[in-house]
């Protein structure tokens, strides 16, 4: 097991290098640079060329890549060409926001989907099951930006219950519980819309997994032995049904962060997603590279963690 983990961690390094090379190549293939889209007729070509030279944009690409790599190995992500600030500063501003959004979204997803999935499975074809199924289908079929717009329209504009924008109320100096409440009010709408499809998906999974597991021989055996329904449900059924959910989580955390681009846009959520999109459009490759590296690491680690949890939850699985 430990050997397996070690091997997986070791293989991550060449993979990350490869990913960074591919991403770098693409960001160089796209025409233009951070100084292309911006011109004031009074900014002469000389001024722009000077700026380009400042960021070594005239070096051959491989040289630019190597110097980037060298800096990263020393823990330095470089300087944003657009903002002139260290990339690490920019990321430090954004990453907490995106993590907050993604984790809240994940929590909402799990809190909603697992219980409802269980109830549906225990009482199939009941009213709850039908409404859950309907929600599940609709949730999967509705693009999340669309859901976000409708949510803003309803909850912010019509009812005025929730703020439509940002992470905290501008100009208010909340502390303690009030701050938490304020943040919660801001995150709830983006987090729910971000996780809409996942929630619907997991709910349906949970239902079918539970139903499948409940049909299995060992559950029938347990039941025939007179084991209480609760114990059957939580000890045997749930445990088994959770396995695929865990595998999916590993996958989807990265997807969640990446998918945040759209949600962050709708809710003006100052996260990594919007920073990344702008960086792509501005060809600000130090930012593109840094974000990509971080997300890639998160996805790879997430996959690994999922595999490890898998073993913990299901003792039948072994890695060698």
């Amino acid at each position, binding site marked *: 097991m430990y050997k397996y983990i070690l091997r997986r961690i070791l293989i991550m390094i060449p993979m990350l290098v490869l990913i960074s090379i591919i991403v770098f190549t693409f960001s160089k293939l*796209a*025409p*233009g*640079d*951070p100084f*292309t*889209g*911006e*011109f*004031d*007729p*009074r*900014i*002469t*070509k000389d*001024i*722009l060329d000077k*700026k380009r030279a*400042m960021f070594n944009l005239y070096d051959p690409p491989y040289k630019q890549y190597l110097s980037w790599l060298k800096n990263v190995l020393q823990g330095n992500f470089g300087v944003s060409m*657009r*903002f*002139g*600030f*260290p990339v690490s500063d920019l990321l430090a*501003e*954004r990453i907490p926001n995106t993590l907050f959004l993604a984790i809240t979204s994940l929590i909402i997803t799990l809190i909603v989907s697992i219980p409802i999935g269980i109830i549906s499975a225990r009482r199939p074809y009941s009213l709850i099951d039908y409404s859950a199924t309907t929600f599940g289908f609709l949730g999967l079929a509705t693009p999340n930006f669309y859901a976000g717009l409708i949510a*803003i*329209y309803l909850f*912010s*504009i019509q009812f*005025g219950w929730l*703020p*439509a*924008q*940002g*992470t*905290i109320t*501008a*100009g208010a100096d909340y502390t303690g519980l009030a701050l938490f409440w304020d943040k919660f009010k801001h995150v709830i709408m983006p987090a729910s819309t971000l996780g809409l499809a996942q929630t619907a998906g997991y709910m349906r999974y949970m239902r079918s997994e539970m139903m499948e597991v409940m049909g299995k021989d060992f559950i029938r055996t347990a039941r025939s032995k007179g084991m209480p329904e609760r114990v059957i449900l939580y000890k045997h059924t749930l445990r088994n049904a959770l396995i695929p959910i865990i595998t999916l989580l590993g996958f989807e955390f990265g997807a969640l962060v990446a998918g945040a681009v759209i949600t962050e*846009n*709708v*809710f*003006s959520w*100052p996260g990594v997603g*919007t920073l990344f*999109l*702008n960086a792509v*459009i*501005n*060809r600000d490759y130090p930012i593109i590279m840094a974000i990509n590296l971080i997300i890639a690491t998160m996805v790879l680690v997430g996959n690994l963690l999922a595999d490890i949890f898998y073993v913990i939850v299901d003792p039948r699985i072994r890695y060698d």
Partner: protein
Amino acid sequence: MFKKSLYLSIVLILVLGIALVGCSSTTTDEPTQPDQTNEGTTNDEGNKEEATGPVEGGTVSFAMFSAPGGIFNPLLYEDAYEWNVIGFVFEALLEQLPDLSYGPSLAESWEFSEDKRSITFKLRKGVKWHDGEEFTADDVVYTYTVLAHPDYTGTRSYIVEPFVGFEEFNSGETDTFKGVEKIDDYTVVFHLKEAAPNALDNINFPIAPEHVYGKYEVKDLVNAPETKASPIGTGPFKLDKIVTNESYELVRFDDYWNGKPYLDKIIWKVINQDVAPGLLKSGQLDVMADLNPSDVDLVKNIEGVKIWETPDFGYQYMGFKFGKLEEDGSITPFDKVYNDKKLRQAMAYAINRQGIVDGLLKGHGTVMNAPIPPVSWAAASPDQLNTYPYDPEKAKQLLDEAGYKDIDGDGFREDPNGNKFEITLDYPTGNKVREKSAPIIQQNLKEVGINIKLNAPRDVGSHYDAVGNDEVELFLAGWGLTTDPDPSGIWKSTDTWNFPRWVNEESDRLIQEGLSLKAFDMDYRKDVYVKWQQLVNDELPYIFLYSQNSITAYSDRIQNVKPDAFGITRDIHKWWVKQ
């Protein structure tokens, strides 16, 4: 109030595909009388402020649609959003008045020398920086010296290029910058290389305090704490609290030289443009500039919201590529079917530009026919120009006369030699109205038998890279202009930003003439520019499309707003809100 627009002519900032053509300088010579508060707003509501009189306190929130980059330093800032935040913090020597002329600000008076090559500024005494220090000539000298400094990392060295001694100092040959001379603590002289009628436009720039920024090396300025978070200016508000990418809070500066502001706070909020009108309605927002034309009707109907609409200096156009700019600065002409002026003119008649303004801009804009927007004092009047009204029949007739006929009956005309032709149109994503206009242009031209191939819209970076490298035929683009009509930078044949690579000696001569000593006479200067506009209007290296109005919505809670050509924020220290 000093305007961001003076310096940035165009900054295309892309936010999730929404390009906001930044900082459009606006002006008008429509009868806007600054002393008539609120007159001219589209919904005329009575002004009851006199009844109660100004009250201190209160907060006003402004919306911006994209987060500022974070350089809150007038010497180095990059985007219009940053200027939003520091526009109330920093001030320049002069303030541009609603009629486009210059009035005193940090400088009380100024005087041109006989040869018009030096300007003496008398600085205002008793002006305090936010940290309590006194504003002096050293700050002025410092500001202009940094711009000219060899290690300067920003893009605004063009401000000091007209100064004597710029090249020597910038290349490191000399240790001092001769262009700006301190006479005493309250007198500075600017020495210019050449006399220029638009000198004040060229050199006015927000002043930064030497005692704050001077302690950093010029190359390290960008990372100074006073650049990132706590700028020190002379303006009516101090930047107080930053929630990065979300809100920027400014508080009143009690010792403001022009009088203590009434408002306690101004908050800039970063808000999605499509959501902002709703927040205006719910009262979470007080001021929203750059309102979407199609949202105007909606916002107009919100109770307690006023709208201020003013023509803009920026405009959109469709350019023709005539040649390639070579490394050595020469231009190699292309052999294109649209080199024929008659074809270009026929195209102008064929495109329903008024329809684009009415349909896509809901009438909140004007059709352009020459490169100086109708709102400028130098603009040629419509009767001096060919206005190319939408007339497909006329376009067809012109094409027939010029020999473009559909010989093979496929619905598209062949060139006078009988060869098929197709012209490619490139356009960028971002500006939504412009994006929508491209397929319409294609459709209009198809209706008169001109075959346009529409390339996929590309992001601004790729688009302008292709345009700048002369890899396109027809292209859509836009300019935001300064208030001065001087077309150099874009229109001289040798200019980098002469995107069409249009070469015309007469045009170059007129542009030169517009900056000559004679042109210090405004009437003469206008004559020159009218001639130049007539030339461009006839030659059509661009087909001018439209100029979009700039529209601001604001809450009637705010009192003493004096909207003008630059927007509504002039004399913001006199704003107050009803409690």
